[in-house]
């Protein structure tokens, strides 16, 4: 039997983490309890975060939006502010797992799991989201690209938790897009995914663009040189084709049970073509 705690607020959590530094945390449990069941991990004690209201929900603070780490995917999907400002995140969450998985799973859990296939990650990379890390005595902010170090590896020290995510509200990207290719439509881990946000002028030129790919390397990948090359170019198949070589050269896909590296490479480039749907 494992010790398990259900703190009702942050004060209680900090007290617990102090006396049980070896405890494993979980929020929705949709990653952690699966790993525990399959014997991959066997933590001596567990702390369930689900009751900590302080880290739940969406807050608007000046020009930023704060999303508490314990906010579930279902809560985000129906949230007015998220729907209005961050459609790329909404599109990604809509294809994450299944209704009950979205009712249980949290954005914080998705980030800390740091799977290259995590569906909220590519949107958070293009939105330049910042992670708020808290401990009993400190609080710091890091961009998501610095927080996630590799598959399952994150910049989180002893006694620290992910409190939530900060995203700038008015970034001016009217066109937002997320697509994942999986083995089936629902309950499918991504084989390749791509998030894109862009500003396109009325004469169909790409004014500003940010792109991120999932499942094609140890972390989500962005290529600033690809983005710079596209800026100023017309949004056409030829224009996009000009950078596909660079994308292929940059990504580091692997063979696994879901797909081969060469299939992933092919699809990663093809997903760019979808942006043509937004041309004016």
């Amino acid at each position, binding site marked *: 039997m494992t010790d398990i705690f*259900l703190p009702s607020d942050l004060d209680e959590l900090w007290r617990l983490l102090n006396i049980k530094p070896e405890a494993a945390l979980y929020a929705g449990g*949709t990653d952690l309890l699966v790993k525990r069941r399959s014997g991959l991990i066997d933590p001596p004690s567990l702390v369930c975060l*689900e009751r900590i209201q302080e880290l739940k929900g969406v807050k608007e603070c000046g020009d930023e939006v704060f999303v508490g780490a314990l906010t579930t995917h279902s809560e985000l999907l129906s949230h007015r502010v998220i729907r209005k400002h961050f459609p790329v995140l909404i599109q990604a969450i809509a294809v994450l*797992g*299944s*209704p009950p998985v979205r009712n*249980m799973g949290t954005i914080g859990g998705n980030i800390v799991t740091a799977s290259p296939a995590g569906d909220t990650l590519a949107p958070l990379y293009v939105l330049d989201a910042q992670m708020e890390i808290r401990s009993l005595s400190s609080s710091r902010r890091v961009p998501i690209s610095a927080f996630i170090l590799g598959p399952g590896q994150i910049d989180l020290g002893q006694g620290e938790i992910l409190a939530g995510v900060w995203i700038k509200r008015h970034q001016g990207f009217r066109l937002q897009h997320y697509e994942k290719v999986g083995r089936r439509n629902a309950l499918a881990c991504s084989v390749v995914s791509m998030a894109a946000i862009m500003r396109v002028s009325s004469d169909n030129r790409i004014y500003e663009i940010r792109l991120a790919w999932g499942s094609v390397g140890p972390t989500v990948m962005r290529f600033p040189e690809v983005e710079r090359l596209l800026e100023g170019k017309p949004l056409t198949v030829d224009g996009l084709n000009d950078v596909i070589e660079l994308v292929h050269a940059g990504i580091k896909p692997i063979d696994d049970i879901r797909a081969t590296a060469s299939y992933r490479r092919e699809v990663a480039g093809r997903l760019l073509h979808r942006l043509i749907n937004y041309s004016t």
Partner: protein
Amino acid sequence: MTSNLLISFKLNGNEVQVDSAPDRRVIDLLREDLGLTGTKESCGRGDCGACSILIDGDQRLSCLMLAVQLEGREMITIEGFSLQEDRLSNVQQKFIELGAAQCGFCTPGMVISATALLRVNPEPSRSEVRQAISGNLCRCGAYQKILDAIEAASKEKTKL
């Protein structure tokens, strides 16, 4: 060493207190300790939806919840549907009438998904119904009849 915990919650309308290991999975608590075997376990890892329950009205998976998480919550299992007024729910009735169960193993989970949907969206489109059961696997492949049954339920005056 950890000992059992008294956990209080509402189960199918009744306040209950159970003496359980806090890390017992809710599916085991239901099936083995409480004798409520309507809720099924198939994959044990979130993939199939057979173990679905309602917690405070939301669909959750009892294979991915630990007993301690029930404290203070209201849980409804498939058994809770027919207790009220001693009859089956409209959704259950439509499953029978339209032959939406073959082996029946996925049925409790499907009924929970359908009920969770109709509570928030009483007149769903076919594609919304598909979305709603996208976390439920049916190994017999009775999907079309399941969709028909849920759609038929949504067309009745009393939907649930």
